[in-house]
């Protein structure tokens, strides 16, 4: 069974992913970001990439999917460079999973 990958972020950062066949959702403000992520989650996209600046706008929405298997929300840097929060999240999750920081 094939499932698609979704990506949410500002237009400049995510447009290249269209070439790879990802579902691209360009957002400019908090409300759009929330609706976009919730829509992709509802349509059962197993993986949703979200750019870091957008994720910072909607922490509540990101948190909602923390405890569910699908979708997995993965933060990626935007074209402005990384903020480090994506990597921080991965580090935290790994620590929770294996019990210590192995990265």
């Amino acid at each position, binding site marked *: 069974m094939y499932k698609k990958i979704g990506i949410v972020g500002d237009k400049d950062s995510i447009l290249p992913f269209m070439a790879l066949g990802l579902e691209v959702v360009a957002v400019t403000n908090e409300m759009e970001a929330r609706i976009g992520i919730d829509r992709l989650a509802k349509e059962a996209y197993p993986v949703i990439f979200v750019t870091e600046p957008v994720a910072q706008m909607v922490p509540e929405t990101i948190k*909602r999917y923390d405890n569910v298997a699908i979708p997995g929300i993965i933060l990626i840097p935007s074209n402005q460079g990384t903020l480090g929060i994506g990597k921080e999240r991965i580090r935290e999750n790994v620590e929770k999973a294996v019990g210590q920081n192995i990265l």
Partner: protein
Amino acid sequence: MKEGKIIKVSGPLVVANGMEDANIQDVCHVGTDRLIGEIIEMRGDEASIQVYEETSGIGPGDPVISSGEPLSVELGPGLIASMFDGIQRPLDTFMKLANSDFLVKGVETVALERETEWTFKPTVAVGDQVVAGDIIGEVPETKVISHKIMVPYGVKGTVKSIEEGTFKVEDTVYVLETEDGDKAFNMIQKWPVRRGRPIAEKLNPKEPMMTGQRVVDTFFPVVKGGAAAVPGPFGAGKTVVQHQIAKWGDAEIVIYVGCGERGNEMTDVLNEFPELIDPKTGESIMERTVLIANTSNMPVAAREASIYTGITIAEYFRDMGYSVAIMADSTSRWAEALREMSGRLEEMPGDEGYPAYLGSRIAEYYERAGKAISLGQQGREGSVTAIGAVSPPGGDISEPVTQSTLRIVKVFWGLDATLAQQRHFPSINWLNSYSLYLTEVGDYLNEAVDPSWAAMVQEAMTILQEEANLDEIVRLVGIDSLSEKDRLTLEVAKSIREDYLQQNAFDDVDTFTSREKQFLMLRLILAFRSISLRALDLGAYLDEVLEGTIELRDRIARSKYIPEAEISKIEQIQKDLQVKVEEIIEKGGLQHD
């Protein structure tokens, strides 16, 4: 009749010989004090007698005289608002005669006050044919109860004379011309307590008895003519539940049997009942109540009789066409009285020392409840609803009295010590209580209140059951693991528990809830659920919904304190809720569907 001689005394049990003329269940006068007793076993000429009074000071050789009659109660005007002991001796007369606050032995009284004058109004004319059970006249006994004078069982004939006027209970009020000549009758009937009064036909009860208690009326209703048991450990609130039903139940007559419980509880009844106003009649509820008291320090054998005395009086009013409720608090003390007598009779004990016939005795009592058509040419429909408290030691309902009771009754209100500790009153456990009348009552209320009643009750019950399941998950892995819908279910279940099921018996408004108010309250809580579910579907977050409705949820919680006259306010809350949640959805930037 031949006089017997006592050969053995063992507490309330007296054995006498020389009693070959007597029959089982005859009332005897024991000793020189003429204590009242009843024969419960015969072996040859030896009779075992349970004595309804204290037996100190009597010994072998004392005389025993059988009256040749079974233990009977007097039925007639003067029953209502009286307080009797277990063998129908009026306690206020008793106090005057004995000049003591406690039962003094050997005092003989009559059950019904002989000197009171009653206004009698005939309802038949001279020359009318009457049969047993026919009403021949009425006496306005209290402002709300018209006492109907009926032709006694086994009599039929033509009315020869009947008069209107004021009479004492023993005065002749009518004369019947029967097959064996003319017979004069007064207003008193006698009936042996251990025999059910005959009826023409037993009916299937369907109409619920509204008690004004939300958990009872909504989830575990009892019908008029049904039987219910209230088992619960000490301090769980059995007595308060019984009192509440006695106060607010919509039965026309209430018989309250205080059987082996604390004397102060009867005092509470005596203090509170006269002050309470029946919402239906506007009169004091004492005007429809008969009290029978055999408190824990009164003779144990009379406890055994008190239950039968109570139900016989109940049946008498049922025959008049009234709906009667009889509360017995508590049947465990009564079973213990049976056990004590059984032990002294040296019978083979059954479970936990109770006699082997415990189950059949309990069944005998509860089976006298029911809805019936009385004897007579125009049968009247009346009902007796029996509600018995059971006090299982340690709250363990697997003991014999509770189990024998549950085999017969169709409603089980299980009181829970944990709930009582959490101050959740009435502490009726919604998970293990049941009512087998739910379908009948659901159909009835669907017509009487609203067509959605039964479905709503079902939905609310399902939510409470889901909560129990979810609670286990929460305990294992924490609340974060639940989906938003499950968390909403928990929130709604909490609302049903705290805002609906909990009811304060000592609050003036909350103590009674009419069925219309119950409907509106339950609908409001369920509306909160459906409105919130829709908001979640449209993309609102649960936290936002909960935060936005704090003030409204508080109003839902306080809706139980809205007086009956202003119940339209509850509908207003529902409208406000709808508007508020629409606002929340819009704030989430989402479109209406």
